[in-house]
């Protein structure tokens, strides 16, 4: 095995892992804060990707630039969806289960609405730099990877700082740990939940754009995305932003290394097997402690 192959596949593994982490943080937040497991999270990501696709196709706007439009737009859509669909079920005995069933339905709807609007054909997000690379010595840093990695890092950092440093962010965490006390100190749970949900959905959109730079997508691709982001979230620990980022890195390293060392046929199998073993030995994710 030579070093170039190992490092090269580590680079792309890690960069991909970070993109899944960006997709995952929002999922992790709604789950941790509101006990809402949002099965449609991946579908929202895909919606972001399709929006970027159309903006690029018809207006020639670069996906990163258009994110400035599509992400806020998703934020608004999510506020509406929260109001209409999520809020009514927060009173269920088992919010986790109810939310899963509801958002499963939502995912089906989104998938087929996208299929109607954008058709079932596969799409590829191809801005000018889409298959270029930054070459450093023997190593290639593919631009889509670099952009995805950078955007993910920025997104995750922003979410982390938001939760850690801003009052609203602290309120989000407080509301999740002790909702009643949070209300007593002036937190409007309803607002906080809406913001959390909308924030989560908009990060999904950003993540979706990053992912669309790497792979082609179709209306049903969100299922696959969901599984990957689910793994990242669990390995990182539910509700743990730093954990999610680290999990992205870890999963990236695992995939990268197995790509370099194993026959490709065994890569997915080994990855899932290792994750299973990881979870058996460290059932609460990377960090024992709860945190963000």
């Amino acid at each position: 095995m030579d070093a170039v192959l190992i490092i090269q596949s580590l680079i792309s593994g890690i960069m991909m892992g970070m993109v899944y982490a960006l997709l995952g943080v929002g999922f992790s937040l709604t789950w941790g804060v509101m006990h809402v497991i949002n099965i449609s999270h991946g579908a929202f990501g895909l919606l972001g990707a399709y929006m970027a696709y159309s903006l690029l196709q018809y207006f020639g706007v670069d996906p990163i630039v258009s994110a400035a439009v599509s992400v806020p737009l998703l934020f608004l859509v999510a506020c509406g969806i929260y109001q209409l669909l999520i809020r009514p079920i927060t009173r269920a005995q088992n919010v986790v289960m109810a939310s899963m069933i509801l958002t499963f339905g939502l995912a089906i709807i989104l998938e087929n609405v996208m299929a109607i609007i954008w058709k079932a054909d596969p799409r590829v997000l191809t801005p000018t730099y889409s298959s270029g690379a930054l070459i450093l010595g023997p190593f290639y840093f593919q631009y889509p990877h670099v952009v995805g990695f950078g955007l993910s890092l920025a997104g995750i950092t922003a979410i982390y700082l938001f939760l850690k440093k801003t009052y609203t962010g602290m309120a989000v965490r407080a509301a999740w740990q002790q909702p009643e006390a949070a209300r007593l100190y002036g937190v409007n749970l309803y607002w906080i939940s809406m913001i959390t949900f909308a924030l989560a959905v908009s990060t999904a959109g950003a993540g979706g754009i990053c992912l669309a730079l790497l792979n082609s997508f179709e209306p049903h691709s969100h299922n696959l995305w969901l599984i990957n982001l689910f793994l990242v979230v669990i390995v990182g620990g539910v509700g743990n932003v730093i954990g999610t980022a680290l999990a992205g890195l870890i999963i990236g390293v695992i995939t990268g290394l197995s790509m370099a060392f194993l026959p490709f046929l065994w890569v997915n199998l080994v990855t899932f097997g290792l994750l299973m073993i990881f979870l058996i030995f460290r059932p609460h994710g990377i960090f024992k402690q709860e945190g963000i």
Partner: protein
Amino acid sequence: MLSVENITVCYGQMKALREVSLEVSTGQMVALIGANGSGKSTLINAISGLVPIAGGEITWEGQTLKGLTPDNICREGIIQVPEGRKLFPAMTVEENLIMGAYHPNVRKQAQESLQKVFSTFPRIADRRRQFAGSLSGGEQQMVALGRALMAKPRLLMLDEPSLGLSPKAAAEIFDIIRGLNKEGMTILLVSQEVMQTLAITTYGYVLENGVLALKDSCDRLLEDPKVKTSYLGL
């Protein structure tokens, strides 16, 4: 400044409070006592807006609190230290305190208040970076009190602040409460430590099965035969 007039609170079919009235005036420290399940927490939660009231009215400085949500009531300066402390376990002590000053009205003075709380409770100042969930019961109660102080309460409602504390820690907490009242804080104190409570308060209300059974000055309550048998176990 707070007056509760004939309020009724229902949980489903069950009436947890029936036409209960209560007054707290500025600078006063009022006691609310009663058996388990008599509705003390319910009354405090009704004032805080956590549970809806089915009848009657709560007025604060002449204005009704009807229809206000907990966050709005908090803005008025009515602050509760909830039963069982309810800290944010996975946030540090400092963050817990800062959350106390969440409301925009008091946010600007957060740093100032923080210093003041730390000087009142030097024990938690040492632990400001520790997760609140890992503190001992007594320390947690201090953080809970500190968090309430951060919100600059004009009326402080304490729900069983000594619950589960060792006698020593409980005594410390009572000392602190008395000190706050001496500095001019208006306080509504709920506690099962009837003797100690009535000893530091001036006026007391007794709830029984959701109904106001007695109200009187504390000295007289202490002499009341009913209080003696039902609450002091004498």
